[in-house]
């Protein structure tokens, strides 16, 4: 067991010793410096371990000078303090290593002393049990920080240091005054002693004022809005190593003191103070960062925001009116937040040190070809943004679910801020991952280690909290996710990765076999696993260009979808949902359109956080348990699913995300991932809304679905990029599915579930074919193709059948969905929706023809003369997906019968009211349809006609492609003859006003509006030290005035 005083004593002694040594033996000074940090780290680790192992049950009080407190000063070290010391010294150690590699500022001996004393000061702040001693340590920390901030001696650094010094001095003056007054008022300086005297709460106005004086001093150090201008300047101007130490360690120590002070001086208005200042700081930080072009200042805003969140949490943590269970949860959240933010920010700031230039644009391409950099950056950003599986996710969840219902506005605030955070962090991510690969500095040890800590902590954190919050995560799925990540190790060879992935997927199917039951989960699970497997086969071509992270991410998407459908609670669904979202984000980001991935990130995050808010409002976390009051939870939860389905007006991410994601991934995105939205909406309709209640909302959903179908179809008609066209088409089709789900009748659901599967078949087929075509032709721009039927007959045939199915023309499989849907609509009597649905499906013919014509028909362009048929794996998958289109066309019951079983397993639903006869085929109350007959009739008469034709026809003379009767002229080139550009220009003249990009403009307007507000808001940071000081004074006056009212 180590006495905590030893940590302080040894550090001090070696600081003095380094002061001597630097003049004689520089190397030894360095050795002592590192050894001291190592010793401190170990010692504090031992103390912390003592608490963890239960050897130390209660906080230890170390008396100094031989007198018990309150006569002498004591150290008060509990679990939190020990952990904080570990944190401080680990960050210090990492920073020191980074410093050594990078080169210490000169004279280095003194720099090391300052560095050591800064970490010592922070530790002292944490450990001390005496208010005046606290002040002394605050000053040690501050003075060391002033010196270190100025250490790079640039203009910015000096300016920042000066501002820091002025504001810091005012703050410490407040603290000193408060401490002295406190002594006068209570006759003691010892924290525990005073706390004992104030046990019943602060009752006198004077004591309240004194407490507020101390608190407002601490709030300055905690970088509260609007008195945090100095902090931002420091983050921007100072040496990143110093900033890492300040943001990662010192400020956290101040936070701990803030907590302790507020705990020992129990002020009744503290709760509202923390909520107001925490909340405003959090929001201001997150939104002002939007306009920030300097990366370090951006990180600064983010740090400020995180501190705001911590202060907010402190309010709840210290509110004794809350249940102790929730307070414990919030405590855990605070610990996680601190841990998470400290290491992530350390990593980020040290990474920033490796990038030349300070602007966001200077980061362009830094992630490319720098795997260590990319790993550190990605894991840090994911941590801060609170994306599972990182620890930051748990912090957010614990915090939110511990907040009682009457403060749900605080939950909303937290979620909105989290969304704003995604916006600017992923903007940076987008910039960093695009463009030409760029050399970044190689000083990556420390950022790598600190982000590695974040990653390594994941299993532990999950182990602790998923049980505590009773989030049962499917163990098999977790295992599969783990194996998927392991595929990365095969990164040296793409074929091996491909094979490994196939094997993993096969194993996954084997493992999850018991879950293939005739219920909703089993239905979607089959779609996910078999569909994902089939599409995986086609990823093989072009794999040279794929990054080695492709296959792991692909598998993670597939298995997290399995996790989503197998979830039994909303929260575990949310977890897998997030994993799916963000791994797919990585995949979309691998394509060409980085802005697409950014938009996807924003909309997905908005949906996900809305869903989290909705889950928060639910009475029970288990799916299908408890009566849900009101419509709000349902609306919020379904937002996430609507985003994934890209339902208008949440669709604007979809075009580019589908169009510009990695070609090998798009089939999965469209064919299966968008169906997760269907799954989710289905859950909402069945378990939250109820299939027969809330008709108005479901009618609204129906309109959303049909309008999506209509407008996306219209947009597809005018789209000239193959993948983007398919993207719009995909979104439109999912709109139909949503419509069916919204109907809430067995027939409607039958239509939706049928179309879900069938849409997978034909749309995946189309996207796979598109991938093959683009791979061969080298472009996805439709007017540059044409005539490819001569080179890719198989792909043409496959595409033709897929298109017939897509258009819903009998006798192929697509018609069943249409027939069921219209039957359901007419049965339900949603007349106007029916009309629009019909019209939309007519419009679909326009783009269907466009695809076929522009790619395969017309004139083969000269540059495509040497194009070959798509690669073998793609062709194989095409055939695989083609067969069900034909088989289901003849025997739709192969799919409809399982769907009936699924429907009978759902509350409120029953098998679709379809009677099957031998002659009439499928018969409903409304109409009938004999699929097999149509197929046989069509195929039979087609064959007869063909044979008859072959016998009777004239001698066939095959002619070259240019040989057409073109007004008597001899056409010169295929390009002249091909009608490729502006295929529906005349139609655009008629209906162009319908596709005015209103939604895009509205979203853009919202974005610009927030930006303008943020710009206005951040102007308060004038950079003028007088102004900053005035803010401090003004704010302290306000605090003293408002919160001193003692009840």
């Amino acid at each position, binding site marked *: 067991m180590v006495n905590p005083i030893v940590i302080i004593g040894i550090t001090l002694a070696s600081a003095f*010793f380094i*002061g001597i040594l630097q003049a004689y033996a520089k190397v030894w000074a360095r050795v002592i410096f590192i050894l001291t940090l190592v010793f401190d780290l170990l010692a504090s680790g031992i103390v912390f371990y003592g608490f963890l192992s239960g050897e130390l049950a209660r906080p230890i009080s170390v008396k100094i000078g*031989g007198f018990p407190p309150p006569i*002498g*000063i004591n150290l008060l070290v509990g679990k939190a303090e020990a952990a904080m010391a570990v944190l401080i010294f680990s960050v210090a150690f990492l920073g020191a290593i980074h410093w050594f590699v990078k080169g210490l500022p*000169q004279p280095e001996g003194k720099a090391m002393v300052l560095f050591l*004393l800064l970490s010592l000061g922070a530790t002292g702040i944490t450990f001390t049990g005496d208010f005046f001693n606290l002040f002394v340590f605050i000053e040690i920390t501050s*003075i*060391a920080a002033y010196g270190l901030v100025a250490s790079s001696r640039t203009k910015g650094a000096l300016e920042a240091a000066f501002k820091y010094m002025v504001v810091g001095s005012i703050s410490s003056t407040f603290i000193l005054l408060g401490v002295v007054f406190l002594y006068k008022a209570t006759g003691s300086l010892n924290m525990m002693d005073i706390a004992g005297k104030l046990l019943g709460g602060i009752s006198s106005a004077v004591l309240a004022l004194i407490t507020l004086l101390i608190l407002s001093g601490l709030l300055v150090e905690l970088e509260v809005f609007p008195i945090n201008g100095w902090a931002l300047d420091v983050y921007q101007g100072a040496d990143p190593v110093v900033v890492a130490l300040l943001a990662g360690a010192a400020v956290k120590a101040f936070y701990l003191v803030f907590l302790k002070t507020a705990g020992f001086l129990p002020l009744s208005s503290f709760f509202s103070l923390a909520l107001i200042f925490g909340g405003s700081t959090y929001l201001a930080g997150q939104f002002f960062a939007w306009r920030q072009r300097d990366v370090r200042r951006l990180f600064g805003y983010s740090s400020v925001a995180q501190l705001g969140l911590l202060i907010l949490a402190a309010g709840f943590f210290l509110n004794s009116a809350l249940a102790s269970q929730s307070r414990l949860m919030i405590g855990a959240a605070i610990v996680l937040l601190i841990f998470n933010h400290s290491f992530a920010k350390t990593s980020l700031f040290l990474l920033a040190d490796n990038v030349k230039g300070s602007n966001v644009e200077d980061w362009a391409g830094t992630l490319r070809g720098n795997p260590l950099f990319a790993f550190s950056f990605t894991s840090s950003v994911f941590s801060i943004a609170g994306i599972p599986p990182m620890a930051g996710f748990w912090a957010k969840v614990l915090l939110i679910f511990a907040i009682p219902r009457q403060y749900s506005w605080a939950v909303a605030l937290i979620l909105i801020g989290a969304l704003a955070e995604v916006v600017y962090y992923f903007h940076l991510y987008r910039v960093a991952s695009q463009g030409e690969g760029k050399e970044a500095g190689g000083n990556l040890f420390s950022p790598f280690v600190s982000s590695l800590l974040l990653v390594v902590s994941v299993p532990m954190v999950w182990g602790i909290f998923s049980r505590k919050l009773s989030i049962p995560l499917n163990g098999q799925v977790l295992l599969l996710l783990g194996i998927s990540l392991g595929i990365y190790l095969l990164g040296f060879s793409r074929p091996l990765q491909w094979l490994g992935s196939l094997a993993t997927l096969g194993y996954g199917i084997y493992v999850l076999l018991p879950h293939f039951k005739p219920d909703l989960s089993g239905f979607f699970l089959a779609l996910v696993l078999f569909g994902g497997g089939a599409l995986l086969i086609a990823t093989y071509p072009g794999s040279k260009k794929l990054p080695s992270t492709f296959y792991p991410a692909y598998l993670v998407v597939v298995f997290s979808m399995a996790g989503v459908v197998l979830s039994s609670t909303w929260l575990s669904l949310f977890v897998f949902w997030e994993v799916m979202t963000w791994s797919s984000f990585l995949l979309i980001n691998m394509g060409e359109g980085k802005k697409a991935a950014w938009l996807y990130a924003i909309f997905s995050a908005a949906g996900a956080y809305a869903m989290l808010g909705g889950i928060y409002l639910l009475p029970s976390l288990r799916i299908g348990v408890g009566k849900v009051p009101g419509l709000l939870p349902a609306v919020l939860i379904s937002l996430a699913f609507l985003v994934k389905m890209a339902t208008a007006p949440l669709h604007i991410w979809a075009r580019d995300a589908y169009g510009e994601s990695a070609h090998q991934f798009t089939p999965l995105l469209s064919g299966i991932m968008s169906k997760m939205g269907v799954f989710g909406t289905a859950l909402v309709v069945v378990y939250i809304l109820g299939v027969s209640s809330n008709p108005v909302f479901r009618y609204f959903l129906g309109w959303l679905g049909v309008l999506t179908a209509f407008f996306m179809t219209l947009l597809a008609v005018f789209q000239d990029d193959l993948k983007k066209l398919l993207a719009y088409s995909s979104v439109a089709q999912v709109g139909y599915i949503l419509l069916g789900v919204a109907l809430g009748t067995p027939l409607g659901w039958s239509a939706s579930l049928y179309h879900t599967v069938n849409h997978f078949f034909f749309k995946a087929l189309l996207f796979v074919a598109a991938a093959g075509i683009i791979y061969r032709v080298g472009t996805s721009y439709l007017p540059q193709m044409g005539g490819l039927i001569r080179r890719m007959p198989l792909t043409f045939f496959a595409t033709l059948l897929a298109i017939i199915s897509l258009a819903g023309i009998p006798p192929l499989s697509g018609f069943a969905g249409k027939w069921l849907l219209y039957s359901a609509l007419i049965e339900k009597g949603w007349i106007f929706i029916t009309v629009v649905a019909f019209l939309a499906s007519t419009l679909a013919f326009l783009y269907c023809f466009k695809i076929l014509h522009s790619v395969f028909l017309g004139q083969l362009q000269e540059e495509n003369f040497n194009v070959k048929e798509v690669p073998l794996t793609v062709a194989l998958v095409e055939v695989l997906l083609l067969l069900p289109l034909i088989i289901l066309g003849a025997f739709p019951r192969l799919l409809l019968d399982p769907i009936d079983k699924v429907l009978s397993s759902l509350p409120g639903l029953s098998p679709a009211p379809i009677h099957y006869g031998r002659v009439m085929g499928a018969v409903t109350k409304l109409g009938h349809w004999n699929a097999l007959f149509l197929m046989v009739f069509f195929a039979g008469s087609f064959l007869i006609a063909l044979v008859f034709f072959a016998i009777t026809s004239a001698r066939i003379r095959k002619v070259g492609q240019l040989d057409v009767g073109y007004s008597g002229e001899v056409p010169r080139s295929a390009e002249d003859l091909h009608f490729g550009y502006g295929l529906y220009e005349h139609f655009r003249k008629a209906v162009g006003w319908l596709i005015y990009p209103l939604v895009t403009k509205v979203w853009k307007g919202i974005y610009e509006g927030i930006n303008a507000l943020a710009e206005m808001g951040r102007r308060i940071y004038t950079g003028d030290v007088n102004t900053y000081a005035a803010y401090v004074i003004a704010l302290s006056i306000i605090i003293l005035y408002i919160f001193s009212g003692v009840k």
Partner: protein
Amino acid sequence: MRKWLALAFLILLGFFLAKITSAFPFGVESWGVSKHYVDKGIEENRGSNLVTSIVVNYRGFDTLGEVTVLFLAATALAFLLATCRCRRRYERWEASLIVKAASETLYPLLILFGAYIFIHGHLTPGGGFQGGTVIASAVMLMLLAHFTFHPNHKALSTLEGLAGMSFVLIGFAGLIWGGSFLANNIIPLGQWNRLFSAGVIPLIYVAVGFKVGFELSGLITDMMKTIKEE
């Protein structure tokens, strides 16, 4: 405008400060924890100067921090100014003969006086900080008077570091033999009102005195010497 706004802020702040202080009537007895120091101070520490007892023993940890702060300031200053290309705004005039001669005379006396102050810190007003300051003022006097006066910087910082370390070591000695860090029971406390009394208090104060003296001297030297002549 700015001025009036500032005044308004300050008046409000002053109002709150006044409101707090008005709760503590001026010059009226109100003992807190320091009643123990006053009543038991002599018995426990044998130091006549109760303030010193508090500073060095009861709240010795504060003083260690204080020494650290000073050390920190000196280090930070030396660190920052080491690479400063600071220039003087005005030409510097050499001091007159009288000043030179007088300062040379006062220099040893001042150092002696400083030493006296910190050696008697536990008996009389004053102590390590005060004595150290007096010593530093002697150095400053010489620096001002003589262009050619160069204190040995290396020696200064070495001694200063040693003094600081000895403070910490005394603290550790207390921890090892006396049961707690900076405990004042490792050497006999001695008689009241004697030079050799009060246990480790004079030892610490001597260390502090040296430290502060060397520290401030170094600090002043750094500030003056980094300014380059034109």
